Structure formats: structure tokens, C-alpha cells
């Protein structure tokens, strides 16, 4: 059951990314190009996505567990650390250069061509590189 609903959530997420224009790098780069031909579409995407999720968090706050009986996420941490800031800055550079973030990179895998596959391979390499650095830095690394 968890796998079935995970598949449905992933599918709806992917369809939403395609419909919204998030897998079109010109829309993403246009949104970040505030000093050029600015494209405000992504504000509607983000706003549209936050709305149902804000309701979901309110519903979740009144529940002890998920519908399938698994634990709900813990309260968000308020800790701001150098990793959050450095990592987000690095992500911002990559997101702007290519116009792809992790979700759309996978959603567009079937139609993104060779360069889409190269982006995904580089992204996965980056994730593994960070894991290795993290394990080296902490001695054991933190669980995801």
C-alpha cells in the first residue's frame, strides 16, 4: 500500500511538473532572469503548490499518524547552519545554469534527450560525492 500511494504521489508530482512548465528550462531561467525578460509563471506554480500543502500540514497537526499508520514528520528544525546556506547557494547556481532542479530532471527523463540524461548523471554523481564528503567530515555521516 505504501508503494502504491508513493507511486500515485510521484506520478501526480511528475504530471504537475510537466503541466506547470517546470520541466521547460526556458520558463525556469526566465523566472530567475529578473534583470532580463522576467517570466512570472513560477510564482503561480509555487503559490498553487503551497496552497494544498498548507492545508495538509493543518490536517496532519491534528493526527497522530498517517492514513497508513506510519509516523508523521517531526516538527521542523529552527537550526540554520552553514550547510543549509552553502548547499542552497550551490543549488541556486546549478538551478540557474541549467534551469533544472531534481524533480523535473527525473520527470523529463523520457523526453529530455541526451543532455537531460547527462544532467541527471552529473546530479547523481554530485549526491554521491557529497555523501562521501559528509561521511569523511563526520566519521559516519547523518541519515537522510
Amino acid at each position, binding site marked *: 500500500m*505504501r*508503494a502504491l*500511494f*508513493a507511486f500515485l504521489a*510521484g506520478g*501526480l*508530482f*511528475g504530471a*504537475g511538473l*510537466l503541466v506547470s*512548465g517546470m*520541466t521547460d*528550462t526556458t520558463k525556469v*531561467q526566465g523566472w*530567475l532572469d529578473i534583470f*532580463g525578460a522576467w517570466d*512570472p*509563471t*513560477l*510564482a*503561480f506554480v*509555487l503559490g*498553487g*503548490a503551497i*496552497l494544498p*500543502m498548507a*492545508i*495538509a500540514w493543518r490536517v*496532519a497537526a491534528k493526527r497522530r499518524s498517517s492514513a497508513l499508520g*506510519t509516523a508523521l514528520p517531526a516538527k*521542523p528544525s529552527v537550526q*540554520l547552519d552553514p*550547510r*543549509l*546556506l*552553502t*548547499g*542552497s547557494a*550551490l*543549488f*541556486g*547556481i*546549478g*538551478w*540557474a*545554469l*541549467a*534551469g533544472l*532542479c*531534481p*524533480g523535473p530532471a527525473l*520527470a523529463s527523463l*523520457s*523526453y529530455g534527450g541526451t*543532455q537531460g540524461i*547527462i*544532467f541527471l548523471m*552529473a546530479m547523481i554523481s*554530485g549526491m*554521491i560525492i557529497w555523501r562521501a564528503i559528509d561521511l569523511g567530515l563526520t566519521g559516519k555521516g547523518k541519515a537522510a
Partner: protein
Amino acid sequence: MIQPDWITGLIGGLMIGSAAALFLLVNGRIMGASGLIGGVVDGSGWSNLIERLAFLAGLVGVPALIALATTRPDTHLTGNLLIVAIAGLAVGIGTRMANGCTSGHGVCGISRLSPRGIVATLVYLGVGAATMLIARHVMGVI
């Protein structure tokens, strides 16, 4: 029938948010793309590997079916493979270092007013806009 971009953006956004709501309320999990992918490829999330793989199968498979059934969408991703590789590496390292990306910090974080999610989003949007200014308008490489 061609819809204006802001309408398809809003509809797609509502679908993304509904997917995140489903994943939270039914599976009890935060829908963060970089975390779900990262946990599979670096081995840190293998305790719930099946759930992750099912999510990723939907994420890749459903857009593939839509692309087959309708016109093939264009990502307009640059053919400059050096830029593509550098960008991919930066996204991979950055999102795992920050423990989140546009979906986890952006959609799921902001909607619960998480300070980390809000700060992360402000940083990647700000740095993204600055990168755009430098790479496109100063250096002219993208």
C-alpha cells in the same frame, strides 16, 4: 486549446501541492525530490527503498506516458554539455548538503512556515537570480 502560462502554472502547481499533501497524509512523508533520489543513489535511504523506488517510478513514468499520448514536450536544455555537467554537479552536491531542494524546502517547507525551508528558498532564489545576471548578461554563457 492553448491556456495562458499562468493558468497552466497554477493548475500544475496545485497538482504538485496535492501530490505532496497525499504523500504526507497517506504515507507520512515529506515529498522532497532530492532526498527521495539521494537516499536511493547514496544508500542512505535503503530502509524504505521500495517506497522511494515506487515514487520515482511514478515521477518518471507518468510524464513519459503523457509525453507519448500528447506532443513530446521540449525541455530546451542547453546543448553545452560542460554547463550541463557543472550545473548537475552543483544541484546534486548543493541539494544534499542543504538537505532539500525546490520541493522539500520550497513547497513542503514554506507551507508549514519552516524557518529552514524559507531561508533555503530565499538563498537559492537569490543566488539563482545573481547567477542568471552574471552568466547570461555579463558573461553571456547561457
